[in-house]
């Protein structure tokens, strides 16, 4: 109340011209601030492209995209991205294979079965998983999950391996699937559920045959976005995945992902202007283009498939 009275006095004490001037100044300030994110995007794209252009004067684009050897940090250098890309896709695929069933199950439980109190308590717990720093996941993978959990099932598992990396990233991105799918299912109108009930459907039938199909666009998008997020994950791969750029499909072995290569170069301090330094930008640009494409598809899926009620 006091605040409102004061504001009335404040408004009355200034001339209309001054108030309009203040409004215009404020508007320009807010506009400038809102342009920062767009400028940042331009800077990101510009910086990656210019350094990549210098990189591609030394390495042909064809060799980069189709080469099967990545030996950027050796004396004899080859820059074929396929080993890094392969490792990134494998770990992300494992991650999504973990995150989709658990995340979707959690979303079904939270949106359809949990009461208001249980939901208020459990949803933050699930979301905590993506708030834990990823170095902690890396630590857990390297010193607990691989040696004490997975080695029991697979005795010849390497200390660094793609499997543990994929599993950990899966837990990390599971809240993305859970949270976005939960939103999608809660957006399904109550009428649809009621119509199904009135036809004599049981609750599980309503959930599995009405709600989930109606929310399918949102669920699909959540999986695509989780995959994109998994591809960019760095610290888990750097700690538990090892720095071995090999083109292999054996998830028991160490393999280096694209972000993990960037982390390795950063750890070793590549001097400014060298080809190793430039390769950071080429890999970064490639990674950005793939994740941006995935995010774009994710948004499109939501728009295309959303049933309008």
């Amino acid at each position, binding site marked *: 109340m006091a605040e409102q009275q004061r504001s009335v006095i404040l408004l009355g004490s200034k001339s209309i011209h001054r108030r309009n001037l203040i409004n215009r100044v*404020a508007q320009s300030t807010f506009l400038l*601030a809102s342009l920062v994110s767009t400028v940042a995007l331009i800077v990101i794209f510009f910086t990656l492209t210019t350094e990549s252009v210098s990189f591609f004067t030394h390495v042909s684009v064809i060799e980069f995209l189709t080469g099967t050897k990545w030996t950027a940090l050796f004396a004899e250098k080859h820059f074929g991205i396929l080993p890094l890309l392969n490792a990134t896709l494998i770990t992300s695929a494992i991650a999504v294979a973990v995150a989709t*069933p*658990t995340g979707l199950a959690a979303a079904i439980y939270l949106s359809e079965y949990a009461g208001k109190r249980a939901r208020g308590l459990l949803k933050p717990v*699930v979301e*905590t998983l993506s708030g834990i*720093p990823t170095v902690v996941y890396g630590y857990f993978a390297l010193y607990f999950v691989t040696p004490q959990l997975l080695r029991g099932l697979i005795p010849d598992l390497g200390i660094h391996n793609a499997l543990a990396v994929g599993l950990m990233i899966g837990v990390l991105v599971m809240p993305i699937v859970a949270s976005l799918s939960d939103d999608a299912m809660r957006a399904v109108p109550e009428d649809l559920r009621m119509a199904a009930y009135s036809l004599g459907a049981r609750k599980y039938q309503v959930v599995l045959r009405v709600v989930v199909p109606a929310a399918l666009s949102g669920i699909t998008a959540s999986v695509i976005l989780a995959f994109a997020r998994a591809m960019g994950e760095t610290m888990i791969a750097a700690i538990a995945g090892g720095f071995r750029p090999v083109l292999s499909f054996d998830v028991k072995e160490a393999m280096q992902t694209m972000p993990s290569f960037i982390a390795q170069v950063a*750890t070793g301090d590549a001097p400014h202007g060298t080809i190793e330094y430039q390769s*950071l930008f080429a890999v970064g640009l490639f990674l950005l283009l793939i994740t941006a494409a995935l995010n774009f598809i994710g948004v499109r899926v939501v728009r295309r498939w959303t049933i309008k009620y």
Partner: protein
Amino acid sequence: MDDQVLKGGEVLRQRAAKRRKVNDVLVPLAASIGVFVAIAFLVSLLLYVVSMGAGRLSPSLLFEYPSANPREAGMRSAILGSVFTVGLAGLICIPLSIATAIYLTEYAGNKWWSQVLSYNIANLAGVPSVVFGVVGLGFLVYGLGLGRSVIAGAFTLAILTLPYVTVVCVEAIKTVPEDQRFGAYALGATTYEVVRYIVLPRALPMMLTGGILGISRALGEAAPILVISGLLFIREDPTSLLSEFTVMPLQLYNWISRPQLAFQQLAAAGIIVLLAILLALNSLAIYLRQRFYRRLEEG
């Protein structure tokens, strides 16, 4: 004959009804496993970290510089580096996010560029954090000549968290009822006055909640800082914006990558400290949010 068919049909129907009843119990049970997995993972992670690191917790962990001897090593320079870098990132990011959100909701209306701006914010959120590090290295460290400095790290983290905090700020502004705005406009208020006296006082607590969540996210980021600062061994407090620095997650990464058991325990103790700080920040955010909702309900 007819009787038998009827009976058979009845048996089938009863079986199907029984199966549906069973499914009605099984499906929620299976669904709750998703939540259970999350809780089990969290608990086992915490138990493991505490069992490894609790014995190594000591004041020296907070007040000593890193050392080659794990028994003497601490994370003083990393804690101060985090406070400097993330604090500065928050000071840059939070006002920018609030201003962006105000422009988008109160000034831009539904014009095409406001949609372009929202689209760009969403795109920025999709950029992998390590790519922010690479761009920070190319643009801030070398391009602008800031060096591997606190300010370069802070700018990078600020832009990294900008989209998240902006989204929360937009949500916060949307909770302010339209009729209060219209009331002020009807009395002849300018848009700025509506923002200053109607929107901001009501939305600020939730905006700050978003800011704190952004800060705790920045605090846990290792990848972009690793690219910007390198894996440095720093035995000095950061003293200026141009100091070289390290942050807590990076110090942990350094310890984690050493195979000796003593370093594993040291890393676990450091993780406990980092998680405790994050827990404190998140509790603060939840507290603010709840106060905010109570105030909303009271009108």
